[in-house]
């Protein structure tokens, strides 16, 4: 957070990603228009539909809600659950906070990096997994914890985390 980012994309939906009808965005905007504080819920839904928040979608949101693009872009890049870049099919979010750290999160991270051959912020060449380091997921009772998609896995070891990965291959 707080760092400057270059605006990615050239404004058109990228090749190879799911094609989304730009009007789907207008529908989302229309459902929220007039509600105060609508920008976050709108961006959430747009990301659900498009998979990420490309420039063309942000422009459309800005236009629809009558906000400046810079305002919309500022919000889209502030929050860690929003992404302006496409990610892998499954995002693996590994908790790096202290309670997980002291229960062996680093070994779990090492195992994941070895297995997937990627570092934090990177996506496997087959586009399946993106590995991310995150702060506490709120499941520290079963530390160390990892979230894949919207599922949480706890009490992981370097061995069990690989078994978990198999569920996704």
């Amino acid at each position: 957070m707080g760092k400057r980012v270059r605006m990615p994309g050239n404004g058109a939906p990228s090749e190879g990603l799911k094609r989304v009808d730009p009007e789907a965005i207008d529908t989302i905007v229309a459902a929220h228009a007039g509600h105060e504080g609508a920008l976050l819920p709108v961006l959430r839904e747009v990301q659900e539909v498009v998979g990420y928040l490309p420039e063309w979608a942000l422009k459309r949101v800005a236009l629809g809600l009558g906000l400046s693009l810079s305002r919309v872009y500022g919000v889209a890049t502030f929050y860690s659950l929003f992404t302006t870049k496409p990610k892998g099919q499954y995002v693996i979010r590994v908790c790096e906070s202290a309670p997980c750290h002291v229960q062996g999160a680093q070994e779990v991270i090492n195992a994941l990096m070895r297995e997937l051959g990627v570092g934090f912020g990177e996506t496997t060449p087959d586009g399946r997994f993106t590995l991310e380091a995150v702060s506490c997921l709120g499941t520290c009772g079963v530390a160390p914890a990892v979230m894949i998609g919207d599922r949480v896995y706890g009490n992981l070891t370097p061995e069990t985390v690989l078994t978990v990965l198999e569920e996704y291959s």
Partner: protein
Amino acid sequence: MRMFRAHVLVCAGGSCSLKANRAVQERLVSEVEKRGLSDEIKVVETGCFGLCEQGPTVVVYPEGVLYCKVTPDDVPELVDEHLLKGRFVERLLYQEEPAAGGAAAYQKIPEMDFFRGQVRIVLRNCGLIDPESIEEYIGSGGYQALGKALAKMTPAQVVDEVKASGLRGRGGAGFPTGLKWEFASNAKGDVKYIVCNADEGEPGTFKDRLILEGDPHAVLEGMVLTGYAVGARKGYVYIRGEYGLSIERLEQAIHQAREQGFLGSDIFGSGFDFDVEVRVGAGAYVCGEETALLESLEGNRGEPRIKPPYPAQVGLFGKPTVINNVETLANVAPIISNGANWFRGYGTERCPGTKVFTLTGDIVNEGLIEVPMGITLREVIFGIGGGIRGGRQFKMAQTGGTAGGCLSAELLDVPMDYDELSTVGSALGSGALLILDDTHCIVDVAHVFARFFEHESCGKCTPCREGTMRLSEIMARISAGEACQGDLENLEALARTMSMASLCPLGQSAPLPLTSTLKYFRDEFDAHINDKQCPVGTCRSLAHRAALVTTGKEE
């Protein structure tokens, strides 16, 4: 209501859900059906019972037998033995001393060390009722406080009762709740808001999630009461996006409460209107800070505002707003039902009531507990917590999460409440307790604390943005054995500047975990700096770690 001979409660708190509890529950239902017992035995999915490390847990009533680490394959035996023949399955019974060998003896739940020291006000229903059933909440006394307030009390009386109870905010800062309500109640304007802060992001804290998963109506009832007290008609719950099950259960509870007339217009025919909307966060620790949360609710970047004005005067959309934590709100209905004096019967003079703690680290019973304020760390760790895992030596406890302070063994007998912990340079904070044994290097852990703040600083004010980065750099050098002369002095100077000059408590409290570890474990820092050695021997891996890029969507 049908009468059942036995109730089988399966913990469906998120922690257990991740341990295949769904499979256990499904298997229970099918095995019970197979034996034609469906009319006699009811399988209920409950919220968290507290013993996360022991999950999935199953409790069988009326006996109150607690089974731990149940797998789907254990279910047929459990049904045959316990539910048909009335014999306990000894190998699955909860054991106070794990790995003691042999089967455990049956203990009544209230007699177990884990539960004996607990007082459950906030968690009154967690693990005991089906959180997806409003009938069960009502059946256990739910919405009676609301009925009482609307029928017999003026809004001012509700404020006064909460003021008299001495309830203080459980989100971290410990501000007197009644006073906050009074400010908002006195503020001019006919549009006011109630916001429930469920953005829980403090590392080591998962109480709000388990309260919302285990008893969502308790929080809703608290919100409606707050709305009545201050004259608000609309409430928002701001909940972090990762808490899928909480969001689901809360949405469902809101729907049920509307159907039953506990939310909506003219509640109980009193003429009072109140409704609640759920807003889902998008991942930013700083949004737990109340003014950043308001910014986020308004659709902006979650950057804290300068205070004053306080939210009670100028809050959401510029209107007077009460922001309370989930746990604070869950305390409200019991206070209204039982009165301020009853509440003051628990806890300490200046911090009445209970506190929910989440136990993590090297402790036997990792999980969720609720105890009277003022309990000592020793009682929590060695009583309820079951001691240090593997019989090892206690080394350090961090209270209040990563933004809290660290305590060494000499301070095990400090009573834990907001005031006492701050006098020893720590904080009660959200109630997270991280317990470490002697196999951990304090410098390594302190480095993790520093990295957390570097990552989570929102970047709005310079002392915090630059300070958290420099603190993290210094800690990386120390733990890699590359510290330069003056690093510790710089760290201390930076800590002073940050705590004085940062805009919000994120930057103000970021140095606390470092200065407090430095205070109690200076020799370990010195060993890394002067002797280039890690006495515990865990810091080698960090050289490799530091070389990796930490994530971020931003490069």
